[in-house]
């Protein structure tokens, strides 16, 4: 065997790693530790991703997010194992894999990443993201004994009528009573407004970071956003979220200033729709990065972009959380995606048909046709799941995206 005499410089990766990813890891590790302590102290709530978390935060409880835990399960590639535990209990394989993996982890925490989410004292669900959350949280309630409180935000068609606002607001008033009784603490409106201010600050920093991706090259790729959204989901309303997003936005601005893209050579700009396949998130996006494909925008991480206006606290929260575009039906989603394509100057789009998630995925066939008709850019649908890797066919996904790239390049 001949010995090499010269050392070649290490080959540059196709994508650039964010240096704030270390801070992200530290922030989320501290958060995970705080959920464990909170559970021991009787102050942990589980919340859905679209829940008005400012309220439980104002009650000094700590929020854990089972959907985020599902993302960890997916990334750790143990989705099939945990979903399997839920299936052993009789939960159908056809149910959302976030739900199944969280149910599985409650059943067998010792075999779950991070030994599962700590047991909550209350389960807080808001159906502005989907109807699944109710069945899921009620099932977990049967297992843990923690009571469920549902903030019911019926889907909107068009503007929010007064009776809708009044109904959601009355649900929030019920939540206040529920929190006061469950955690034996009076409601403090001023505190809620302060938490809402913190939440707004973090959301603004996050939104500015997302909007920076209109630049060419885009400073962030899809995986960057999906991983960095963790604090906006889990720590909205806290100083930790602001600290993280200040640093994060700083790095994004720096990249823009220096003309540094998330990937080395940006050739094609695409829109991503839906949750990512967590078990292959790096592989999927980095493989495409090597082909010069970046995803400057997606329909999912833009969901946390609304500000709670100063005013009567509960009414403002009722407005913001009812009107998130996920709660407004297919045409709002299509409008949003067409706008993203236009504003971010995208060349095409990839719709991930997530078998778990009927709310976001059903309608994608129509979406594909309408978006192409309206924007003139081509798109493709790939199939799979975000957690359950058994539902994903990598080769098929690759072939379909390649076919899309052929149309664009």
């Amino acid at each position, binding site marked *: 065997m001949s010995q090499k005499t010269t050392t070649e410089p290490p080959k540059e990766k196709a994508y650039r790693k964010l240096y704030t990813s270390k801070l992200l890891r530290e922030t989320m590790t501290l958060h995970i530790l705080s959920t464990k302590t909170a559970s021991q102290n009787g102050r942990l709530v589980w919340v859905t991703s679209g829940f008005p978390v400012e309220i439980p935060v104002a009650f000094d409880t700590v929020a854990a997010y089972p959907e985020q835990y599902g993302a960890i399960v997916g990334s750790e590639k143990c989705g099939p194992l945990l979903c399997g535990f839920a299936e052993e209990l*009789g939960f159908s394989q056809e149910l959302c894999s976030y739900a199944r993996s969280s149910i599985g982890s409650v059943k067998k925490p010792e075999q779950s990443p991070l030994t599962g989410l700590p047991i909550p004292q209350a389960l807080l669900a808001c159906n502005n993201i989907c109807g699944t959350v109710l069945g899921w949280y009620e099932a977990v309630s049967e297992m843990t004994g923690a009571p469920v409180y549902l903030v019911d935000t*019926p889907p909107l068609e068009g503007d929010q*009528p007064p009776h809708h606002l009044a109904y959601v607001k009355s649900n929030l008033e019920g939540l206040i009573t529920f929190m006061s009784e469950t955690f034996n603490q009076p409601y403090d409106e001023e505190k809620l407004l302060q938490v809402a201010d913190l939440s707004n600050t973090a959301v603004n920093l996050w939104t500015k970071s997302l909007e920076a991706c209109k630049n060419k090259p885009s400073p962030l790729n899809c995986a960057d956003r999906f991983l960095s959204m963790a604090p906006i989901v889990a720590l909205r309303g806290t100083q930790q979220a602001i600290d993280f997003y200040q640093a994060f936005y700083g790095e994004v601005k720096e990249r823009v200033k220096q003309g540094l893209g998330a990937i080395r050579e940006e050739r094609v700009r695409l829109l991503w729709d839906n949750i990512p396949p967590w078990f292959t998130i790096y592989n999927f996006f980095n493989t495409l990065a090597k082909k010069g494909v970046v995803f400057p925008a997606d329909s999912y991480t833009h969901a946390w972009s609304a500000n709670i206006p100063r005013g009567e606290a509960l009414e403002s929260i009722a407005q913001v959380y009812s009107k998130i575009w996920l709660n407004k039906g297919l045409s709002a989603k299509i409008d949003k995606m067409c706008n993203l394509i236009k504003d971010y100057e995208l060349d095409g789009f990839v719709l991930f048909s997530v078998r778990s998630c009927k709310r976001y995925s*059903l*309608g994608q066939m129509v979406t594909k046709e309408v978006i192409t008709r309206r924007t003139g850019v081509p798109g493709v649908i790939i199939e799979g799941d975000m957690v359950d890797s058994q539902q994903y066919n990598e080769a098929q996904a690759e072939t379909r995206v390649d076919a899309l790239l052929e149309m664009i390049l």
Partner: protein
Amino acid sequence: MSAPLSYDTVVSERRQLLQTIITPETSLVGYIYPHTPLELFFAHHLTPTLLWADHKTSGAYEASLQTFCCAYSRNLFSQRAKEQLPKLSAIAFPGGTCDSLQNLGDVWRARFHEDTVLRLTYPVARDEAAITYLTEELRGFSNHLEVTFGSKFSIDKYREAVALTAEFRAAAQFIVAARIFQPSIYPYPEYAKLIRQFFTAPGPHTLQQVEQVASEVQHELRTNQLIPSAEALRYGLLKGQIPELTATPERKGPRIVVVGGMIDPEGIAVLFENAKINAEVEEAQIVLDILSFSFRTVFHPPSNLQGDPFHELAQSIISAPAEPTQEGLPDRLHFLEVIFDKLKIDGLIIAEHSFCDPDQFEIPDMLKIAEKKKVLTVRLPLDPEFSDRARIEGRLQSFFETLSVKR
């Protein structure tokens, strides 16, 4: 030995029945959600008809919906795509019930531009605030009907319709209560047919048939002095309770309960009767079903004629037995437990549409209760086309065989 039941007959009867109520003036509105307020349509001179799944229609959805859309929604879409639905002036989708239907309505609008697609959104909660919300939704929906069809809300038509549905429900409730005591008094498939007839073509003709059966059942119960017991049970069920039975229920064979969501009772009846024949346990009886298109709509309380119609309709919808799409799993589980305790149940059939999240989340807890109460269970994942019919019938057959051994 009785002849096997055929689902083909069921479907063709539905179509024929619909023809009998259609005149050139009839504006037929198809609906999907079991608690759709029929009275509101009648008040606007419209005729509501429940859109049943059709086991003979499949495919034709693939270019618009993924396979993980629930089986029922897929089937409805296929019927429309193949132009097999009755001729409708409009179709009313529910909002706020389940993710499949929420999307189905949107996709329908996008695909069938020529259809008039209505949407009435329901709350998931079941409290006073939910009633207030639904009251205004109904008021808005009524205004929308007026604009769309140019027909004003008629209080007289509304009152007539309230009387129609109340009389139908009272008669059907009595049959349900009577069957719990004496299931052989009126076979389940016949009961399921009565329900189907009324919801397909609600009117004096189908009401009369239900009332006729109720009166025959009453006559028979009188002979056995069971009327007070059946009435007490009916009132209890209307309040979501099961009182102590004041007479011993008939026990010629295994007593079975069926639970599920938007499952077609006649579909279950066909599967059940045929599997019974194959397993040679003809005496097994479905004594009660807790299905959306049967028990939950039959025990829907009547609207009060005194107050604001929209408020009264909302009140009656919210007070109806809760759907799996609504809050209240602990109450539903408790109700099932009481059924096991008080109605002398031997077996439980759990029917679920494939990819129906609301049903599928509840089933594991139902199984646990059944196990605790030593009630034998069988789980039937169904699609309306019965694509897996042989396996389903096989499962039912072994369920019956185990039940026979147990007894």
